[in-house]
């Protein structure tokens, strides 16, 4: 019996090592090598749904890129997305990404359908939340609609963001788009401040957001927000070339 338990754990752990080895290779952009690892693993066939998800995720970047690989990935993902567990949500999200970015020509309507489906799940799983942000972005740059309608559609998605993953990204997409379309500096500032409050994990993106918010607050005469943004920027970015300019802005506020 003991021997059987040991064998069981050896098989399980070797399987886990193979999964991580495959993903590690993928993270290093060695997609073809990762595929070989996953193909070997799939032969053991212990968690067929996860194996199929990894196969699809690798297929979309396998070299050389071919429409046949995308079709095969799509096929796998469609089946996986029938169940709404984390694998199913990941599959639905990836289907959206294939239509949004991998297919030539892009299939934006199909991508929107996938992301809308994700939004309707009310799931806090990271990729369900990420799908909502992608949907907001597609709404904002949908050239067939008037700009005001695009912003209404994107703003309405905020209530769907129930988890923390990607919430600050949602606000940044909105803020930067208000600036790009010159559709309202006050709206842009509101979203920048919301993103900062939520917590932006990437240093560079946070630094830019603090500057943008500070500059907008300055233009709009909101000195408290301006001061807070600049002070946070200086404390977090002591070596940034924008520091002396920001410092002079702060001195002018005193």
């Amino acid at each position, binding site marked *: 019996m003991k021997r059987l338990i040991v064998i069981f754990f050896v098989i399980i752990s070797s399987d886990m090592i193979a999964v991580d080895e495959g993903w590690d290779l993928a993270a290093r952009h060695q997609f073809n090598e990762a595929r070989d690892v996953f193909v070997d693993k799939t032969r053991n066939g212990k968690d067929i749904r996860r194996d199929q998800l990894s196969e699809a995720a690798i297929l979309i970047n396998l070299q050389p890129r071919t429409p046949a690989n995308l079709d095969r990935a799509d096929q796998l993902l469609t089946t996986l997305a029938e169940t709404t567990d984390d694998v199913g949500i990941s599959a639905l999200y990836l289907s959206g990404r294939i239509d949004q970015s991998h297919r030539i020509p892009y299939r934006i309507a199909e991508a929107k359908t996938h992301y809308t489906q994700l939004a309707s799940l009310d799931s806090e799983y990271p990729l369900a939340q990420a799908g909502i942000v992608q949907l907001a972005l597609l709404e904002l*740059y949908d050239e067939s609609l008037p700009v005001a309608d695009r912003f209404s559609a994107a703003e309405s998605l905020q209530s769907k963001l129930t988890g923390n993953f990607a919430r600050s990204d949602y606000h*940044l997409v909105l803020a930067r788009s208000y600036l790009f379309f010159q559709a309202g500096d006050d709206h842009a500032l509101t979203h920048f401040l919301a993103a900062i409050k939520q917590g932006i994990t990437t240093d560079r993106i946070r630094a830019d957001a603090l500057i943008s918010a500070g500059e907008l607050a300055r233009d709009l005469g909101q000195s408290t927000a301006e001061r807070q943004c600049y002070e946070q920027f200086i404390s977090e*970015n002591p070596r940034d*070339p924008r520091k002396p300019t920001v410092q002079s802005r702060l001195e002018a506020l005193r």
Partner: protein
Amino acid sequence: MSTKSPWPRRLTWLVPIIVYIASLLFVFFKFQEKQDQKAIVIRFAHWNLHEGLREGYDELARHYEELNPGVKIKQTVVPKRVWYSWQQTRLVGGDPPDIIQLGRITEDEVIVQNFVPLSEFAKEPNPYNVDSQLEDVAWRDTFFDGLNSIRVYYPALQEIYGVPSMMMSLCVFYNGDLLKAITGSSKPPQNYRDYLVLRDQIDAYRERTGRTLIPIAGASDYGTYLIGNCFQILTQKRRSQIDLPRVLTLPPPQVALAYLRGDWSLQDAEIQGALNVFQSLGRGMQPGFLHLKREDASLIFTQQKTLAMLSGSWDYFLFGQECNFPLIVGPLPLPDPADPDYGHFTNGKPHEGEGNMNGVFGITKSSRHREQALDFLRYLTSHTASARFATSTHTLPATLEIEPTDQNLRVFARVEDGPVHGFNIGVGAESHRWLMTNSYRLFQPGGTAQNFVDDTTDAFRQSLISDLRTVLKDQIKTNQRTDTIVMAALHRTTTQLDRAAGLFSGQISRELEIAQLQHALAQEPD
């Protein structure tokens, strides 16, 4: 017919002696090789052929060996012109040196596959900084750039892959004897107005002495840097009017987007001003300088055929060795806020930013001694080693809290309290090519900034569109790859949620740029 032996018969006794010496040498080198095989050998390669640098690195390597018995450091210097192919061959062959200079690899894919990310280590203090002002400071915060500059930090990968060993700074070198003979003073021009005065003084000197003297020696690369600086200085105020994303330092694609929106044009007084200043400075250089190499310019400067040379801190050591006249270092003579013609365009000498880092080294993934290689990089960039390197090579350290011992080097010191810079109109390969292939128009007889702009505006617009299409293509490609990598972070046996969040933030931020570029390019004819 008689054949005469090339060896005189009396020298045949030399043969066994030569064979004997050769065998001794063979045994000696084999023995040495075996000794080396026992030691950990760290090989590092770079292209810094500038005088003094090889010796400077060598000195540090020997000192490191003393501190770490059993470790050997071997330096390989490969000329810049063959570096790319050499490096590719070594990387593809799976046998690169342990440490390689970064800067000639533009593809993130090559970086991620071949180099060790250093971000985690950068958060820890450098153990070689114990007993210095930088003790207990995170390694990344011991550098001028905070390890944020290009070639060091790779935004799409969100990782630090290199650490810089020195900084570079542009300047003008003057022949001290000639400067004094011409101006009666040893003080070099501090700005554009001073330079115009000097130019008149040179004319007077030529008339007085009958001597043909070129004011400044220039070369193609340095001409590129000069025009870039002219734009960066004279568009400082204009920048604030086109900064739609409100980030203070506009990334190049945003500069191009602003142009397509009509927020700035080549007819703007600031752009014409920058071209006028470049023309004025370029007319003081030898004819055809935009097509000449650095060596051509150095030669005429050291031969005293020119008063000065436009170059940078990297040449200071060479000129110190080769010039038999006193060397004076001055800043680029560009307009300052007091300039009567261009002062109202500028806020003053800008912060030199995160650029100009050099000698950036990364560790290759195939290194058999990664820990030791990392340890050597920590030593190389420590306060003590950086100070030693800066002193022996007369270069600027990339590490903080080191005062240059050479007074002349203070001129090179980075501007750290300046305002943000403006923008360069060469935003990518095509617009840069447009600028450099058309610059000759400024130096033709009768050439003016206005003619230059009138004749090339259409081509400029096309070059910007081409550059934006390149950015678009690259961003799409990066984001496609990121899809798989986000999946990797979330579906490993242990989920890397923070990494996935960071990757997604980067991806959606690029996706936003893609959408904005597509929106702008959709308005342009194919």
